[in-house]
C-alpha cells in the first residue's frame, strides 16, 4: 500500500439526481499530516467528509481510507477512523464519562479497556473534574472537548473533524486548536478536517484544499498557497503627480505595479528587502514617499484569488446557521 492514508478519485455526490454537492474531486492525504478542506457554506465539505466516514454513499468515483474502499469495506473503515462531528452529539442527559463509555460501546470496546482509555482522554481534554456532571451543564468549549475525546476512544488511525470550532468564541477556538495539536502528537494520527475559518486552516493544517461549488480549486500548504499569489504587496503614495510605475517596475524582485486611488499597489517577492530599494529608487529621482505599507499575503487573499469572493461573506451565513441549530437544541429541553 502507498503512503496515502486517504485517497479520493473522482469522488462525486449528487443529491436527488440534480444537485451536485461534490463534483469529481481527487486528492490524497499523507500519513501524519493535518489536511484541511477550506470553503464556504455549501461548498461540499461536509458531504465529502460524510462520504469518507461511510455515512453517505458516493454517486460516482472512489475513495480509500487506509486502503479500505469506503463503499465496499465500510465496516473496516469505521473501525479505524474517529469522527468529531459538527454538532454537539453528546447526550445531555448523560454525564461526560457515560457519554465516552457509550461511544466505546458503539465500537464494541470491552468495558475495562474503555474505562482506562476514558480516564486518559478526560485528562487530555481536561474534563476529569467534570466527568460525573451532566453534559447539560457543560459550556460550548467543554462539549467540543468531550466530542474530541469521544472521537478518540477507538484509537483511530485517522481522525475526521467537521468544523471543529464552529460556534466557539475566539479564545475557546484557540484553546481547542491546542487540544487538537496535543491529541495529534499524543496519538500520532492523520487528521482530516473541514473549516471555513481561514485562521484555523492557517494555524492547524499542513496542507489545504480550497473547495468551492463542489470542486477542489487548489491544493497546497498554506505557505505555498500564499506564495503562489506572487509575493507580498506594497502600497505607497508619492507627493508628486507624475506616473512612476515604470520606475518602480525596474526595481529587482518587483513583479507587478498598479496605480490605484492615487497610490501604487506593488506585488513583489521578499517584500522586506525589496521595499527599501523601491524607496531608494524613488528618492534618487527626486520623488517623496508620503505613505507606505507592506502586507504579507493572507489566506483570505489566496481564497479571494481562487474563488473570486471573500470568505468573510460566507462566514456570516454560517454563523446564523449555527445559532439556529443551537436554538433548536435548546428547544428540546
Amino acid at each position: 500500500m502507498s503512503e496515502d492514508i486517504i485517497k479520493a478519485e473522482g469522488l462525486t455526490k449528487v443529491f436527488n439526481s440534480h444537485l451536485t454537492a461534490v463534483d469529481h474531486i481527487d486528492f490524497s492525504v499523507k500519513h501524519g499530516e493535518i489536511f484541511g478542506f477550506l470553503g464556504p457554506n455549501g461548498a461540499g465539505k461536509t458531504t465529502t467528509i460524510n462520504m469518507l466516514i461511510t455515512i453517505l454513499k458516493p454517486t460516482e468515483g472512489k475513495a480509500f481510507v487506509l486502503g479500505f474502499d469506503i463503499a465496499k469495506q465500510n465496516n473496516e473503515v469505521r473501525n479505524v477512523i474517529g469522527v468529531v462531528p459538527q454538532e454537539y452529539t453528546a447526550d445531555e442527559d448523560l454525564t461526560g464519562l457515560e457519554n465516552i463509555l457509550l461511544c466505546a460501546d458503539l465500537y464494541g470496546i470491552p468495558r475495562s479497556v474503555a474505562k482506562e482509555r476514558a480516564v486518559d482522554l478526560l485528562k487530555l481534554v481536561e474534563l476529569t473534574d467534570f466527568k460525573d456532571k451532566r453534559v447539560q451543564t457543560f459550556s460550548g468549549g467543554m462539549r467540543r472537548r468531550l466530542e474530541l475525546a469521544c472521537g478518540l476512544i477507538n484509537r483511530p488511525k485517522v481522525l475526521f473533524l467537521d468544523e471543529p470550532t464552529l460556534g466557539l468564541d475566539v479564545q475557546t477556538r484557540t484553546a481547542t486548536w491546542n487540544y487538537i495539536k496535543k491529541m495529534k502528537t499524543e496519538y500520532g494520527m492523520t487528521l482530516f478536517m473541514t473549516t471555513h475559518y481561514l485562521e484555523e486552516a492557517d494555524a492547524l493544517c499542513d496542507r489545504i484544499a480550497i473547495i468551492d461549488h463542489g470542486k477542489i480549486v487548489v491544493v497546497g500548504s498554506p505557505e505555498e498557497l500564499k506564495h503562489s499569489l506572487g509575493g507580498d504587496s506594497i502600497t505607497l503614495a508619492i507627493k508628486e503627480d507624475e506616473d512612476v510605475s515604470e520606475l518602480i517596475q525596474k526595481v529587482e524582485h518587483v513583479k507587478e505595479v498598479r496605480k490605484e486611488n492615487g497610490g501604487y499597489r506593488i506585488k513583489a517577492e521578499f517584500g522586506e528587502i525589496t521595499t527599501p530599494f523601491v524607496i531608494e529608487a524613488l528618492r534618487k529621482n527626486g520623488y517623496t514617499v508620503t505613505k507606505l505599507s507592506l502586507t504579507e499575503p493572507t489566506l483570505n487573499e489566496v481564497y479571494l484569488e481562487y474563488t473570486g469572493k471573500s470568505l468573510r461573506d460566507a462566514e456570516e451565513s454560517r454563523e446564523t446557521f449555527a445559532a439556529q441549530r443551537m436554538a433548536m437544541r435548546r428547544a428540546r429541553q
Partner: protein
Amino acid sequence: MSETNGNSKSKLHGVWALTNRELKKWYKAPVIFTLSIIQPIIWMGLFGKALNIGALFSGGTFALPPQIASQFTLPQLQLLGSYFSGLQTSILQGAFNTTDYFSFMAVGMISFTALFTTMFSGMSVVWDRRLGFLNKALSTPVSRAAIIFSKVLSATLRSMFQAGLIILIAVAFGLQFGLGFNPVYVLGVFAIMFLICVGLSSIFIAITIRSTRIETPMAVVNLINLPLMFASNAFFPTKFMPDWLQTIAKFNPLTYTTDAVRQLLIFSTDWTQLALDFTYVAIFAVIAAAIGIVLSWRFLSK
C-alpha cells in the same frame, strides 16, 4: 504503541448500550420517571371511575315507581329485587364477559399504554437525526439494525414496566381476577406486551425513519392513535360495534393483545382463544420488526 486496539465485534453489546442510553434518559430524569408512574394512576382513576358503566345497572336505576311497588307484597318485592340484580349481573357478564367493568377497562389501559409509549419511539429517531447523534452512531461499526432495534427495545421495556405498574395499581383499585387465575399468568401478560410493543414501535419507527422534522411523527401519531385505540376492544366489546368497525377491529392487533391479557387476568381462561391471540400478535410483531429493520437498512445507508 501497540497496534491492537482491542475492539471486539459483539453486535449485542451495541444494542444494549444504545437501549441503555434511551432508558437512562427516562429513569435518571426524576420528573419524567415520576410522571410515567403517575400517568397510569390518573388515567385509571379517570377512565375507570368516570366511565363506570357497571353503575348503570346498579339497584338505583331499577327502583320501581312507588305506585307499582305498592301493588306487591314485601316477599314479592324481594324476589323481584333479586331477579333484577341477577339480570344486571348477566347483562354485564354478557357484554363484558365479567361482572366488573373496572377490571375490563383496567386491562384495556394496558394496551392503551403500550400504544402511547411505543408511538413516541419514532420521535426519538427524529431527534437523534436532528441532533447529529444518528450520524455519529452511523460512523461507528455498530450494526445499523442495532440502532433501530435499541429504539424498539427501550420503548418495549418502558411499556412493560408500565404494564406491570398498571396491574399493581388496578389490583389496589379493586381489580377482580378471573376464576382459576394463577400469578404465573402475569408472565404471559409480559410476553404479549413484549410482542405488541416490538411490533408497534417497529411500525412507528419505519414511518418516521426518513423524516427530519419532528412534526411528521407528531402528525402521524395524532392521526392514528385514537382511531387505533377505539377500533379495538380496549374499552368496549367489539360485538356492539357496527359491522365495518368490527372488521377493522378484527385486524387490529390491539384487539388480540387486550383479549389475551383479559383471558389471562380477568376471564376464566379460554386457552384456544388465548393461543389464537398470541399467534396473531406474534405474526404481527415479526412482520413489523422485519419491515422496520429492512427500512432502516435502506434509509440509514443513503
